[in-house]
């Protein structure tokens, strides 16, 4: 299906919007009426037609606008994209993975022509047609990781694997949930997750690391994570927190439906062939509360999850102060009916809101 790309912004006037199609395919992250950390990994081998799971790297209506926003973030702060010197080969691995995947999964949008190491890459939505020599950095305008991730939605962490650990040694991070690549680069798996509450004690990271260390080529994995963001702001970085933090105080009972967004990360994990590095794309999807409420099952469930979330998690995810106002809004969409299992909207089978 061909995609109409939105002309929209993720800053200033926040003209971002989700079409009806985008709302229906939003990766709602709660498979039941409550939430707690778990090692919720599954194989990343497709999914229902037109879902965000279907393709290896989902391209949606926000693609062009997100790439424009990324370019602005990088112009303001080039430290959002860094690669330690030993990670260049992994960058080429990543470039190959994305180019091959996108040209196979979206042949109407992307083309890759290969003649030995002489490659030609055509990206129609962004108007790019570049010829270069694979593994020769001098033939690209940026390093390989930066080049391809300026053309791919979501943040990308490229993790080196050594000493039975994963090391955050390269990344393109402009749409992050409040963590700093510039600060965390070079850290191991436990160190960069250090600020996360409760999960260490539950053994989550030990088990997750064990799983990730064993990911094989051609067998990628995925999970969903989530947080809350006021306004459809992609760049919720600590670097700019002194500017965007204040926006959290602009919620009112009148504007909360439009302004408060559920922020979902589709995290995927791919083993890279030459470097044996692991790439960890973190794709951000935003959906306003009022759009989520158009799916009755999601309305019921979101109210219950937000209401019952432990204080530590609501604090860590940065919405403890706004939780009472959220609940005042969300409770109007919870009629107490049971909800079906799983994350899908189930519009044909779940009853409309009873009033």
């Amino acid at each position, binding site marked *: 299906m061909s995609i109409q790309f939105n002309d929209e912004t993720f800053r200033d006037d926040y003209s971002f919007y989700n079409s009806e199609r985008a709302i229906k395919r939003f990766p709602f992250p709660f498979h039941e009426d409550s939430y707690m950390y778990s090692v919720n990994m599954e194989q990343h081998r497709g999914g229902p037609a037109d879902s965000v799971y279907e393709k290896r790297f989902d391209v949606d209506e926000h693609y062009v606008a997100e790439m424009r926003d990324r370019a602005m973030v990088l112009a303001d702060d080039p*430290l959002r994209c860094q690669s330690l010197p030993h990670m260049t080969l992994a960058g080429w691995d990543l470039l190959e993975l994305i180019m091959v995947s996108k040209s196979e999964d979206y042949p109407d949008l992307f083309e890759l022509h290969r003649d030995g190491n002489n490659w030609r890459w055509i990206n129609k939505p962004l108007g790019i047609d570049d010829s270069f020599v694979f593994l020769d950095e001098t033939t690209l305008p940026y390093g390989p990781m930066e080049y391809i991730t300026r053309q791919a939605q979501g943040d990308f962490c490229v993790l080196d694997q050594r000493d039975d650990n994963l090391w955050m040694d390269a990344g393109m991070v402009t749409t992050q949930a409040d963590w*700093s690549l*510039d*600060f*965390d*680069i*070079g*850290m191991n798996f*436990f*160190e*960069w*997750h*250090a*600020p996360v509450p409760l999960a*260490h004690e539950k053994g989550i990271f030990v088990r997750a690391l064990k799983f990730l260390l064993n990911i094989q080529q051609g067998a990628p994995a995925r999970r969903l994570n989530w947080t809350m963001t006021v306004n459809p702001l992609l760049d919720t970085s*600590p*670097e*700019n*927190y*002194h500017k965007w*933090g*204040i926006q*959290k*105080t602009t919620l009112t009972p009148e504007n909360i439906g439009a302004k408060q967004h559920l922020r979902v990360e589709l995290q995927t994990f791919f083993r890279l062939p030459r470097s044996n590095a692991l790439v960890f794309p973190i794709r951000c999807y935003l959906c306003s509360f009022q759009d989520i409420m158009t799916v009755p099952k999601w309305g019921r469930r979101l109210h219950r999850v937000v209401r019952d979330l432990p204080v530590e998690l609501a604090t860590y995810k940065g919405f403890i*102060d706004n939780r009472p106002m959220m609940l005042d809004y969300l409770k109007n969409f919870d009629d107490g009916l049971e909800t079906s299992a799983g994350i899908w909207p189930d519009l044909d089978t779940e009853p409309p809101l009873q009033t």
Partner: protein
Amino acid sequence: MSKFTFPESIKSRPVYGTLAPRDGSAHLLVADAHGAEAILDMATPEMMAKAHIIYIPKGEAFEEDLRALNPASFYSGPSYGAAEPRLRKALQDAKMGLQVYLAGTEGLMGQAQNEAMAAGIPHTAIQTEHRGSVARRMQCVHCKGITEDVETDPFVCSHCGLNLFVRDHYSRRLAAYQGVRVDAEDPGNVPAPKGIYE
């Protein structure tokens, strides 16, 4: 001076030990202020015969005691920045079997550890012992400027002037803890500063 016991913290926060002499072809010891006492507590004549001590007194009076250990090479300098070229040279010239010992404030140990790592020594092979001030070396996550010897939380960034709270999240690469604006969601509402461990 008694040693400070740091409270339990998150996994990115460094943990320090107690220096102990190891067999080695040479010994490089870097310390500031009360870090001298950690060296004095473990030094042996055999070790000192192959030792290079780099010391930044920061107003403390241990220099003569350290000199009296008769290290093969001794340096006392006014600041870490002043000592850095010498430290780099020592690491550049290092041979297999060099033992590295760091003692004193977290800022000193973190920066010297970074230099040693840049020279190819894994951080897990470097001994550290905290002594003296519990002040921290802080990076402002907003302007990226480093403020040395931060004793209170919150504190004022010495570069951009924002009021920052002191996190336990630590970057070995930057040899610094992270400071984040404390009043971002309520400008002007800055809590009264108190000692980091109070």
